[in-house]
């Protein structure tokens, strides 16, 4: 496992990519979930009882930053199929959507645009925000292990 990570991240390009994904995803999710406010002042706020939500955002961002560059490495360097890339992207998207649709501007826009269908979807994503994020994290973990396994096979690394 360490060998696989070393193989991918020995290339500085992938370190930069992972850092970019982690920082942009975490800050984006913290803004969408209203842990960070940009107006009228830039301020960070962690209300009591929302610690688990914050922790899940950090985990989701870290796993996305780990898994997505590994899959890009597989596709670009090893010319592998794009099939396994789907798990990482899917996990990241559903994890993001869970936090985005609440009573904030994104949820408001979705409901204003799609009416009762949008309201039902928003209510679902809001009510099940934590379980959806846990599922997204589980998908990313599974994608991570399947990626490591296939890299070992494709690169003929010693187990």
């Amino acid at each position, binding site marked *: 496992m360490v060998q696989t990570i070393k193989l991918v991240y020995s290339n500085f390009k992938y370190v930069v990519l992972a850092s970019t994904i982690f920082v942009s995803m975490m800050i984006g999710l913290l803004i969408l979930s*209203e842990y960070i406010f940009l107006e*009228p002042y830039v301020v960070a706020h962690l209300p009591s009882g929302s610690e688990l939500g914050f922790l899940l955002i950090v985990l989701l961002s870290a796993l996305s930053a780990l898994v997505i560059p590994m899959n890009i490495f597989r596709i670009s360097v090893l010319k592998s199929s794009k099939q396994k890339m789907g798990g990482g992207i899917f996990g990241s998207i559903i994890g993001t959507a869970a936090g985005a649709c609440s*009573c904030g501007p994104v949820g408001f826009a979705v409901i204003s645009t799609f009416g009762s269908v949008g309201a039902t979807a928003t209510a679902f994503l809001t009510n099940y925000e934590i379980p959806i994020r846990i599922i997204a994290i589980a998908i990313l973990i599974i994608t991570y292990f399947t990626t490591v396994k296939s890299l070992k096979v494709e690169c003929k690394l010693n187990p």
Partner: protein
Amino acid sequence: MNKKGVVIGVIVVAIIAGLAASYSSSPSETVNLDMGRTHGTISTAMGSPILGDTSAPLTIVEFGDYQCEQCYAWFHETKPAIVRDYIDTGKANLVFVDLAFLGRDSIPASMATYCAEDQGMYWEYHDLLYNSQESVDNGWANSERLKAFAFSLDLDMELFESCLDSEKYSKRVQYNIRQARENGVRGTPGFFIVGPDGQEKIGGAQPFSVFKQILDSMI
């Protein structure tokens, strides 16, 4: 002479009774009877009664939804400090304006608060809703529960049920939602701090420190 005395007596008794009635209601709550009421660019005519001193120099206009979890967070995390430091001290007052959009029970919940206002219990009902909030549309704010909340506040149930079932305040809530859209509110909670020299907008359940900074700069 006797007739004149009786008439004057009746008028005096009526004035005393009126004054007594007005002083016996909660000192921090006024029923909204001002149809032309505005705060900055916002028409709050159809909003809540004013919480706090009506002559306070600053007004906090809150746009909210009773099913919004961020509104719940603001109600519990930030509002108590604002009430303590600004509303109870007469520096600011607060008006709640409905932006009921999250689910099918959001609008009935807003209507129910105005049915409670009919019986002088707007803020008590408002607080009870925010203290009882659960997941969006899971039934916590359906018609039966809204009536149960009214019952727990000892409201006249015949009046309340007739008000809620007839959707007496449907247009009032719709008017408030329009006010939110016209003032560029794109989510709940959304706030405007309105003072004599202008207004500041705050989006989201921001911490007390942000409100304090703005309120202090506007006093």
